[in-house]
């Protein structure tokens, strides 16, 4: 078994995909770092101060002004309302939620990458794991060996899990290393608040507690890895079902992008919360942002994702075991 996994890993390494992924992450992180840097500079210039409390207060006032605008969707209003309460809470407790530093950058990077960027990178590895062997015909060579079929597929799946782990590691290390050049490497012990529970327009703060940033980041990385594994598993399933890698990519891309779009408009379609793609933003629950559909919680989203992932895995194995290969 370990030899099989090794073999599969070797194939992935040979395709040089992981290096491409590393390069993509590096370029994007550099880009975001620069954008963030420009934004802080701009803010500093506009307010003439580096005092974060003044800046946060200004953001609060800006939010309050935007909330006054009459032509605003109910959802957006709710979202802003909650963000406002949260910023107010941070200010009252004298905590700067965006103290500059590589860890803060890393945290926001993960939060923004969890629903699209990281799954996309995982897809790059997962999409052709099986389909390429089917289209190239090498699957036959694999299957004529005296090894059980499920073992072959399992070895591929384990190789995928290992790749996901590597991608997460690259994202974490690169975002820390590159942004640190600009923002400095300190800030892991910055206290952050979590446990906000949005309730309608209100924010329940009964469960709010403080955790250091390193713990916060570790939690987010764990959740991002979970999301990536689920998306990877579903991609894996399509890779088993379809011979064309392009079709696999197309389907998964459509699903992911529709998730991003749907999250903005499904608030009144309640059963949409059982779709996996509107449940990807797990880090929002840690942050305390309003969920796309009222009543969604971290536990709910994790359960939905787990069910989708397990179902995908079962389908993949079931189909792979039964299929005639000729």
């Amino acid at each position, binding site marked *: 078994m370990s030899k099989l996994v090794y073999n599969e890993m070797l194939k992935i390494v040979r395709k040089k995909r992981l290096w491409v992924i590393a390069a993509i992450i590096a370029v994007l992180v550099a880009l975001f770092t620069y954008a963030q840097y420009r934004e802080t500079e701009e803010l500093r210039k506009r307010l003439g101060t580096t005092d974060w409390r003044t800046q946060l207060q200004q953001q609060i*006032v800006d939010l309050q*002004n935007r909330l006054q*605008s009459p032509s605003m969707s109910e959802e957006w209003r709710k979202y802003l309302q909650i963000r406002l309460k949260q910023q107010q809470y941070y200010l009252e407790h004298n905590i700067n939620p965006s103290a500059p530093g590589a860890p803060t950058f890393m945290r926001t990077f993960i939060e923004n990458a969890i629903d699209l960027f990281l799954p996309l990178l995982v897809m790059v590895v997962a999409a052709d794991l099986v389909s390429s062997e089917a289209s190239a015909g090498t699957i036959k060579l694999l299957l004529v060996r005296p090894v059980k079929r499920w073992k072959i597929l399992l070895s591929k799946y384990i190789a995928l899990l290992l790749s996901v782990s590597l991608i997460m590691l690259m994202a974490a290390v690169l975002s820390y290393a590159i942004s640190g050049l600009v923002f400095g490497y300190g800030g892991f012990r910055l206290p952050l608040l979590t446990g906000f529970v949005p309730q309608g327009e209100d924010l329940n703060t009964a469960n709010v507690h403080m955790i250091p940033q390193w713990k916060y980041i570790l939690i987010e990385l764990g959740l991002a890895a979970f999301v990536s594994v689920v998306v990877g598993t579903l991609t894996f399933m399509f890779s088993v079902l379809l011979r064309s890698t392009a079709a696999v990519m197309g389907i998964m891309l459509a699903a992911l992008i529709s998730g991003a779009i749907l999250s903005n408009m499904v608030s009144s379609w309640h059963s949409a919360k059982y779709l996996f793609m509107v449940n990807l933003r797990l880090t929002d629950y840690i942050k305390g942002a309003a969920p796309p559909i009222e009543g969604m919680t971290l536990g709910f989203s994790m359960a939905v994702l787990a069910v989708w992932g397990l179902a995908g895995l079962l389908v993949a194995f079931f189909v792979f075991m039964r299929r005639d290969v000729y």
Partner: protein
Amino acid sequence: MRRSTVALLIAVAALSGVLWLGGLALAVQDQFFSAAKPPTKEQRPPTAETRQHDEKMDIVALGDSLTRGTGDESGKGYVGYMVDALRRQTDKPIRVTNLAIRGLRSDGLLRQLGQPEIQRQVAMADLIVMTIGGNDLFQGGEALKLDRKQLNEAKRRYVANLDRIFAALRRFNSEAVIFAIGLYNPFGDLDDAKRTSAVVRDWNFASAEVAARYPNIVAVPTFDLFALHVNDYLYSDHFHPNAAGYKRIGERVASLITLTEEGEQ
């Protein structure tokens, strides 16, 4: 060599995989099973950060849409034009903190002043400019309440709130000059201009009376600025000033500020 690279990658991946699992476990533990200990409010030392007699001039702007600059395409508002005028007179760095919120009424401002950070900003200010009362009087810019009973009731509440606002401002900052900018009549061109103007004058008078109870609070009239050709100075909503209107207000306030006085007093 390739062999060892792959083996190494597998080992690294497995190790970091353990880390991600740990993170996931931590997420579950922290979000579902941790007993919440709400953080205690940090008592900020009220000292240290009061008004500094430094080279910089800190201006805090409070109030409603007028201070926000609604209606000015450039977004400056009278605060922006005021600062422009001041910059022509001095090289001192000027810092503006605009805390105004559109649609704010006097009770809203009073609530806003309850926030510790707002209090800190006020305490650090060298100069405070504010507009309030417009939304108490004109219901969000739609009309003037002309029912006498309603009007008197609104005024009573407004005056009481204004008194508490000024008292609060003086409590947080006993030195900074406060310019309380008065109202103009945006309906001066309409048929019942006589009546509406009388109501606005009355309202301004009441505000000025309250301001006079406190040291260094100056009620700045704007009524006269908009008395003639009111529509030349109003935005297309016929309520907020346009750029020209804001410019007039800003220049009037700027003309009242004596720059030498700051830092010497």
